[in-house]
């Protein structure tokens, strides 16, 4: 088992002929993902790395995709996501950064009503080694295993997954939530999936300052999760009121600080690492 993506995930790439679309199509194919179609208006009939390109998603539906990789410029993401929702795609991954948050809010709330899942925007996607990957995580850092990873970050996720893998662990599924203020998935959504995933025996959470998603996750873990959880939270050193790249990382009104997150998680029985490199060793402790 794994969560969100597996052998049955059939991916269509909206914006497949763009730089990111094309590059990541190849990487996903190399990883073993089933990329079954691509969409670029006006490029219908061509191919990208052997994947057929269609003019519209409606046309591409004949390849029976159930997940989409959206890599179109920010102003067009809302349109592309609506196209996916209209066509009944179950999993909508949005790579694009700088999507207006009200667009994301519309996409996410609409998708929820239709029972669809949105991943991102502005995140690295989801990887279930080596069943399927939708997104941009580097192929070479994974090993199949029993650790589920949830992260709001990109590169930091790779760093930590890499360290897990080097330390002899393997991953069930790695989920990148995305760094925007509004994302399709949050920690609780993914925790509730890992909870019931038989392959996942321990969970790693990578959080950051801003918002209260980690605090809510702590609450949820306390009540529902019996699997060991290790966390790492960035942003301890961030000065108040300063943005640190992610729009999510604004600290206001004393809420959402690294301290409050770490405290909440520790109270929920989560081991919190001071440094990324400590994650594997803490995991070894809880696995004893």
């Amino acid at each position, binding site marked *: 088992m794994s969560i969100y993506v597996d052998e049955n995930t059939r991916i269509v790439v909206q914006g497949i002929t763009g730089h990111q679309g094309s590059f990541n199509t190849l990487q996903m194919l190399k990883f073993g993902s089933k990329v079954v179609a691509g969409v670029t208006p006006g490029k219908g009939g061509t191919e990208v790395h052997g994947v057929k390109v269609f003019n519209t998603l409606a046309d591409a539906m004949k390849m029976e995709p159930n997940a989409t990789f959206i890599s179109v410029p*920010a*102003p067009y993401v809302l349109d592309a996501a609506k196209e996916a929702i209209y066509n009944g795609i179950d999993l909508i991954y949005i790579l694009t950064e*700088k*999507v*207006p*948050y*009200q667009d994301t*809010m*519309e996409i*996410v*709330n*609409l998708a929820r*009503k239709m029972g669809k899942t949105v991943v991102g925007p502005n995140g690295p996607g989801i990887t279930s080694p080596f069943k399927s990957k939708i997104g*941009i*995580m*580097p192929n*070479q*850092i994974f090993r199949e295993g029993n650790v589920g990873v949830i*992260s*709001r*970050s*990109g*590169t*930091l*996720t*790779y*760093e930590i997954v*890499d360290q897990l893998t080097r330390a002899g662990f393997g991953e069930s599924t790695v989920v990148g939530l995305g*760094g925007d*203020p*509004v994302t399709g998935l*949050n920690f609780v959504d993914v925790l509730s999936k890992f909870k019931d995933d038989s392959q996942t025996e321990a969970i790693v959470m*990578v959080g*950051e*300052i801003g*918002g*209260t*998603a980690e605090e*809510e996750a702590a609450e949820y873990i306390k009540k529902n999760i019996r699997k060991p959880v290790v966390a*790492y939270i*960035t*942003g*301890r*050193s*961030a*000065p108040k009121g*300063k*943005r*640190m*790249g*992610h*729009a*999510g*990382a604004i600290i206001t*009104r004393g809420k959402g600080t*690294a301290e409050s997150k770490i405290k909440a998680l520790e109270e929920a029985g989560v081991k919190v690492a*001071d*440094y*990324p*490199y400590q994650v594997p060793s803490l995991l070894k402790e809880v696995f004893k």
Partner: protein
Amino acid sequence: MNLYEYQAKDLFKKYGIPVPEGKNYEDLSKIDWNKFPAVVKAQVLVGGRGKAGGIQFANSSKELMEKSSQVLGMTIKGLKVRSIYIEEKLEVGKEYYVSITLDRSARKPVIMATTEGGVEIEEVPDEKIKKFWVDPTVGYSNFIGRQMTFDLGLPDSEGKQFQDILAKMYKLYREYDAELVEINPLVITKDGKMVAGDAKVIIDSDSLFRHKDIPENAAERTELEEIAYKRGYSLVELDGNIGVIANGAGLTMATLDALTLHGGKPRNFLDLGGSDDVEKVVGAFELLKIAKPKGILVNIFGGVTHCDTVANGIVEAKKRVGIDVPIVVRLSGVNEDIGRQILKENGIEAYSDMMSAVEEIVKVVNKQ
């Protein structure tokens, strides 16, 4: 992006939200105001301008000029006051509070209102703040305003005005991709009129491509941050002495955290992002040169960004930019061996684990 009060009030006017009569001035000689009593308000993008003397009252033209010359050009929390907004002084009866902003957890806009306005909203007890979460796919509907009116216990005479203002605020919030639309205080004048005493609007910077009528306010950024922004970098100035270049916001933050926990003081946050471009690396060093740190830590986990590209960038930068402080590099991930080799050939030793690099740079800088 924060709007100045005068910009926010212009938007309010556009949407028919009542505001006091007022006008913005950047130049004392242009002041043609003749309605008294009047208020002179410093236009700055920080809170607490009142306490800092940025709000003054005047009863005559003479007094107005005095107060205006006091306020215009003064410095509030490090920011120079470049314009003043002069408006009629309201006869305040009561002060309420109302705002619309994003609730990240709910992924929905939340409307908040209380009859305890005029103060910092954080100081108002939670049970006094009425909240409504709007489903963005359904949008605002009038019952929401009715419900808040009853929840707040507003008298009939205020209810209609409040509902009208709230509907318009939501329209503005939605149509201008606002992160926040806030009225504090929402004044009820002595003759019963509801007027926006202050106006705070934050527009989602990512949405500016569709709001060409909103000028970009640079004032929230420092000089260096502004340069970086214009060159396409995500840089935040801090008050330490170790320059930092890393890739990915999360990894960059983790680097700052690790430095701090080790007794180091970061000079900046600088995220290379998902690029794989030698020039992008060189440009980062150019920015750090302006920042004048005592040492530079480069922390790269190679994915989209290849380690060899970064190594070449560092070598280039040393040549072209002329960096004369110590550089400590950590390379891991895609092409790390090639990258380390390139650096070695140019006399730079690169670590493969982050912690050793962090320890090294702190040691080197603190020795100076």
